[in-house]
């Protein structure tokens, strides 16, 4: 379903992704793990047509995201690391706009919005403004919205960041169920190793822009001689803390906090 071959992405003198290759099979849940700044989000942005690779080849459902942007965009749904809902609109309105942007016919849009909001336990709040939602509800709504146009691949970039254990547990249960019910391929990133261990069929670990290991959780543990995925991850990527420079989004969040005060 996804094929990444020798992909490189540089920003000026910085190489964010360095000769990365991996495949994701149709219908599997694939976890893409790595420390901060390892290149996870950059890879997702390239696969979702937001960035062009400097070199190498990408494929999603047999199509090149750099040359067939529109066709590729119809085939995936995405939940970004930062929220991308409109907080000043209702849950229903957010779903509806998404449906129009993806050319989902009105009747199907309504039926599917209803089904997805019910599945993600948001139906009763459909007419409420998103800004009144909790973090977990917003994340559930983003996933529901990402599935509205029946994508073949769902990208989840750290979808459980900042959520309490109950919300995380509920979200992964829903994702797992969706994967089974609709056969949607899931490509996820997370810093919670227990989540990856629990839901992912296969895992790729990226560090300093390079893939350092690929396999199932059991295979990674066996390869590193460890008992948990977290230990395997630390063995593969080391224990040095990675610092990321603040992005513009981080700075905006800071401004937002000051304004709220």
């Amino acid at each position, binding site marked *: 379903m996804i094929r990444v071959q020798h992909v490189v992405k540089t920003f000026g003198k910085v190489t964010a992704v360095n000769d990365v290759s991996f495949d994701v099979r149709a219908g599997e849940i694939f976890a893409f793990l790595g420390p901060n700044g390892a290149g996870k989000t950059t890879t997702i942005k390239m696969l979702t047509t937001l960035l062009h690779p400097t070199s190498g080849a990408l494929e999603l459902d047999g199509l090149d995201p750099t040359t067939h942007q529109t*066709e590729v*965009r119809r085939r995936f749904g995405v939940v970004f690391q930062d929220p*991308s809902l409109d907080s000043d*609109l209702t849950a229903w309105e957010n779903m509806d706009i*998404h449906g129009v942007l993806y050319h989902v016919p009105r009747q199907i849009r309504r039926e599917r919005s209803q089904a997805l909001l019910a599945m993600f336990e948001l139906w009763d709040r459909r007419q409420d403004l998103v800004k009144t939602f909790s973090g977990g509800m917003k994340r559930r709504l983003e996933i529901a*919205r990402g599935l509205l146009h029946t994508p073949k691949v769902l990208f989840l970039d750290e979808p459980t960041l900042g959520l309490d254990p109950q919300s995380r547990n509920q979200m992964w249960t829903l994702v797992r169920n969706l994967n089974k019910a609709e056969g949607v391929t899931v490509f996820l990133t997370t810093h919670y190793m227990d989540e990856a261990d629990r839901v992912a069929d296969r895992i790729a670990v990226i560090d300093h822009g390079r893939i350092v290991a690929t396999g199932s959780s059991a295979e990674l543990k066996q390869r590193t001689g460890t008992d948990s995925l977290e230990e395997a991850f630390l063995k593969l990527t080391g224990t040095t803390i990675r610092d990321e420079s603040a992005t*513009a989004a981080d700075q*905006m*969040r800071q401004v937002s906090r000051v304004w709220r005060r």
Partner: protein
Amino acid sequence: MNVVYVLWLREVKKYLRSRVQIVASLGSPLMYLGVLGFGLGPVFQRAGEGKYLQFMAPGVIGMTVLFTAMFSGIAMLWDRQFGFLKETLVAPVPRLLIMIGRTLGGATVAVLQGTLIFVVTLIAGFRPASLLAVPLAFLVIALIAVIFSALATAIGSSIKEMQGFQMVMNFLVMPLFFLSGAIYPLEGLPRVLTALTRIDPLTYGVDGVRGLLIGRTHFGVTLDVGVLLAVGVLFVMFGAWRFSKIEA
């Protein structure tokens, strides 16, 4: 067209739901009308220029439209960093349609805000020379709104930080307003200032609105509308080009 419509509707809904924004945006125009309109009125009248409120009301409407349209650029910056813009950027629709929807939405909000200020000026004592010309004046107001909403889209597409927009407000928006002849007549200005007023699109907008509402125009309404149309096309193309270059 559905895409343009939903994105336009989104901007309008957000505006109508934000009562605080509506009330807050009345602050500056009311201050200009109250302090300048009544403060400078006697001086203006003694200089033989007639009632200052009559002269400056079209300028304050133009200012409101300029500021509101330019603020749609801030909204876009907000959306871009941690909001809704990414959702639209990965959608299987041409970016041109997204840009047009956003720009028309921002322009509509600016016209609505301009309408509100028009009503306020009427309450303050402003009287249009002809009621029949009011709808035509609003067509010019709509042109001003599209021009600066498109410019805001271009700027919002080009800068990534809120601080950058502060610079735009200080070094672009305020000069655009003060050089437009909104609060003083264009006749008898120093040569440099005259040249600067000529390259400010808002000058033609304010002159056109003033010409239609009170019959006093410097360039003639036809020339005003011609310049506004030309600048409008240019700015929409510029906005579309900058928007097409956004990388999330």
